[in-house]
């Protein structure tokens, strides 16, 4: 046995005897220590460990709290950011359950079984777990009321679908729907999703609100569009028309380190971010990263960049025309008026051309109220 080991054994024996002889337990030593800490805390004005409250609610550190962003193509969210919108929603599609064929929302028939597919995307680095999705329909038009659930369960309650969505992934919520036995199957479908820790709750409602017509060149088409003022006061609405549709353009997103990102007009944007300690491909140590688009999708106000195609014209009977493709209309409180819209098709319109005309309404404060898309196919 080495000299050190002998000393160690001696000390161990000594302390063993001490603890046994004086019956000193760890608990007693810690109790004495705690009292000393209490005295120190009183002298220095700190909280005593004994008096730390249990917390009714607890704020998670940002590094461990997760913020998914379940979303869909949301006209309201996009218009609030001056983006152009279309009411032919790419995330809401209707299929005939018997044939499996895609059916435009303006071409539904009575007493027919359809499935409505709502695509919910998660625009976040964090999984979206337990996303609730509901789907309703109402009469076609701008802000018409009387929403009804697309699908009811055996007890007559609205069906709500539950989705779990991967980061930057998407999933379908599929609802079964038998159209009511009424002649006019012109409807608007609305999909809403919800998550309790939604990073951006503003992009959770999307609408599908279109009508499709075929027409010959040189003719004109009449549309009657109901417009409901849901508020308890008369309001002066602004209507704007454009022909925005999705192009084939692709957008490149790059994962880049961010500090704070500024957009035009000094508005801070708040993209999804991820705190990474290490990343194999980036060969980075640590930092906060986000997907940055090239070119930036936030810098351009595109509202006036989508005039109708040459020769196409739109006239609305009663509202006052206040500018190019812009009208105002006053609607009494809780009243529906019918807008008589006439679309003129140029004589030289090519057969097969499709013109999508988006009519979007805004309230006096500039907030988007609703809209429709008129899709006209030239025969």
């Amino acid at each position, binding site marked *: 046995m080495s000299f050190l080991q002998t000393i*160690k054994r001696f000390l*161990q024996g000594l302390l*063993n005897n001490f*603890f046994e002889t004086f019956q000193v337990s760890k*608990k007693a030593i*810690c*109790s004495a220590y705690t009292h000393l800490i209490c005295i120190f805390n009183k002298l220095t004005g*700190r909280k005593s460990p004994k008096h730390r409250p*249990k917390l009714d*609610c607890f704020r*998670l*550190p*940002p*590094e*461990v*709290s*997760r*913020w998914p*962003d379940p*979303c*869909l*193509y*949301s006209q309201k*969210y996009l218009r609030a950011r001056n983006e152009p919108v279309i009411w032919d929603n790419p995330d809401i599609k209707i299929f005939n359950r018997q044939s499996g064929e895609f059916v435009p929302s303006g071409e539904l028939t009575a007493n027919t079984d359809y499935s409505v597919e709502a695509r919910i*995307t998660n*625009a976040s680095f*964090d*999984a979206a*777990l*337990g996303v*609730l999705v*509901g789907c*309703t329909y109402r009469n076609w038009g701008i802000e018409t009321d009387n929403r009804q*659930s697309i699908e009811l369960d055996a007890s007559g309650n*609205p069906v*709500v679908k539950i989705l*779990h969505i*991967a*980061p930057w992934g998407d999933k379908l919520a599929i609802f079964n729907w038998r159209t009511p036995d009424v002649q006019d199957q012109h409807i608007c479908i609305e999909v809403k*999703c919800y998550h*309790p*820790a939604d990073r951006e709750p503003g*992009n959770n409602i999307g609408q599908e609100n279109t009508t499709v017509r075929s027409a010959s060149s040189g003719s004109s088409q009449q549309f009657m569009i109901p417009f409901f003022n849901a508020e308890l006061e008369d309001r002066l609405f602004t209507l704007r028309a454009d022909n925005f549709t999705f192009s*084939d*353009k*692709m*957008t*490149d*997103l*790059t994962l880049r380190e961010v500090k704070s*990102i500024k957009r035009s007009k000094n508005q801070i944007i*708040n993209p999804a971010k991820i*705190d*990474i300690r290490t990343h194999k491909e*980036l060969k980075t140590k640590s930092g*906060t*990263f*986000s*997907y940055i688009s090239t070119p930036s999708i*936030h810098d351009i106000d595109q509202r006036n960049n989508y005039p109708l195609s040459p020769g196409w014209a739109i006239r609305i009977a009663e509202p006052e025309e206040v500018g190019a493709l812009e009208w105002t209309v006053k609607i009494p409180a809780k009243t529906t008026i019918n807008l008589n819209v006439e679309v003129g098709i140029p004589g030289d319109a090519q057969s097969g051309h499709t013109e999508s005309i988006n009519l979007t309404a805004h309230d006096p404060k500039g907030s988007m109220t609703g809209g429709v898309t008129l899709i006209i196919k030239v025969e």
Partner: protein
Amino acid sequence: MDRSYPHFANCATPGSSRAFSFLNFDLLFSLGFGGTVITMLISVTTGQVGCAIAIGLLIALSVEAHLFKDWYYGFRLMCIKKDKCIIGTMVGKAKQSFDGDTKFDMLVAPFEKDEVHQYIINQLNDDTDEFGTGFTDEFNINDLIAVLNYIRDHIPDEERRIELYSRVVHKDMFNQDNPDPDRDYLKHFLVRDVDEMGQEAFDHSPEDRYPPVPRTDEVNPMYRSSHTPTDWLDDLTGGSDLAETLLPFLHCELEGYGIGRLMNKIIAMALLTAAAIAAFCYLPWPANVIVGGIFLLIALLVLIFYDKDSDDSSPADAGLDQGDVDREAIVLQDDVLGIFGNWIMDEEHTKYFELHPIKAVHFILKANDQPDVTQTLHGKPPEFYGVSQISSNEWEEICELIRISETVDPIILMRINEEKKYAMMAGLA
């Protein structure tokens, strides 16, 4: 991918982790032998024995504090499995404790609180020989406070409490004779399972057999409850950190650095004081007063200002930047959460099994929150989703998504079409 999260402790492999002991050989050696040697050396060199003893003891104390910190953050926790996921309901209230950790306790899915409350009540009512003390009325689920008080006041015997909870866990929640795969998916967090834990962790953790009695030091349940006995470390850290609830639960902890900061303070104070004593004893006047005074002043400043505003566990404790907080995530009792973290056994607290540290908290359901996503004119829909509806398959799906979120590198380049661009616009810079 390794995401940032508050992290200070590392678990030790099964067999190398250990409970704290004042008789721990290294600590004793540092305090006794180390201090003695230093004292002897200084005494022989200077001839001033009193100063030498004081300096030697202070240096030994600093070494002791360092070793305690080393044990606390390096050997106290036994690794079981890295990166585990649970789903559960938060029970009781969160607590921020002395060591800087924030703790909350989870009733594992798919069990709902009322279901397990009823199991406890049934056990109390059904076996009055074992648990009864002459109550004339049966317990019912509408008076859980009475049940809680009854267990606390009338079943003081630890073995009988463990018997009660073992019946609830081993027989009612996870019926050994009639297992239900669709409800047993988180059983291994409350009942030992060698396949889930791995042989080494299984061999180095206490048995949790049912029936649990006779209970010895080698027999200890995996689950915790408010009625779990406290130990010396609970006293040290300000009482039990467990939730006040009837329910058996899995304990989860967000790491803080309270003990580390305390030990740092002790080390700094001890060394500065030793330096001050050395200056007073061995420097000529007036240098001894000036230098010694400076060291004492620094020690005083450390005592007062180091760690002054760090009472509670917070991101700032972890030295993490809070500037990127989008919104505060508030966790409440009854929230259903998906929690991702390392599965460990704490060698203290009579062997806790925990998720520690918590690396991520995913909300699944908020307490009392059933939004109307159908927006009908019929008012709010009935409750349509609850933790009891989470099946084994759904749990696997959820945990796989959590694993992807937490461990898979996000791709660097992504190309999306216009439809996706507009749908996901809120997430893009």
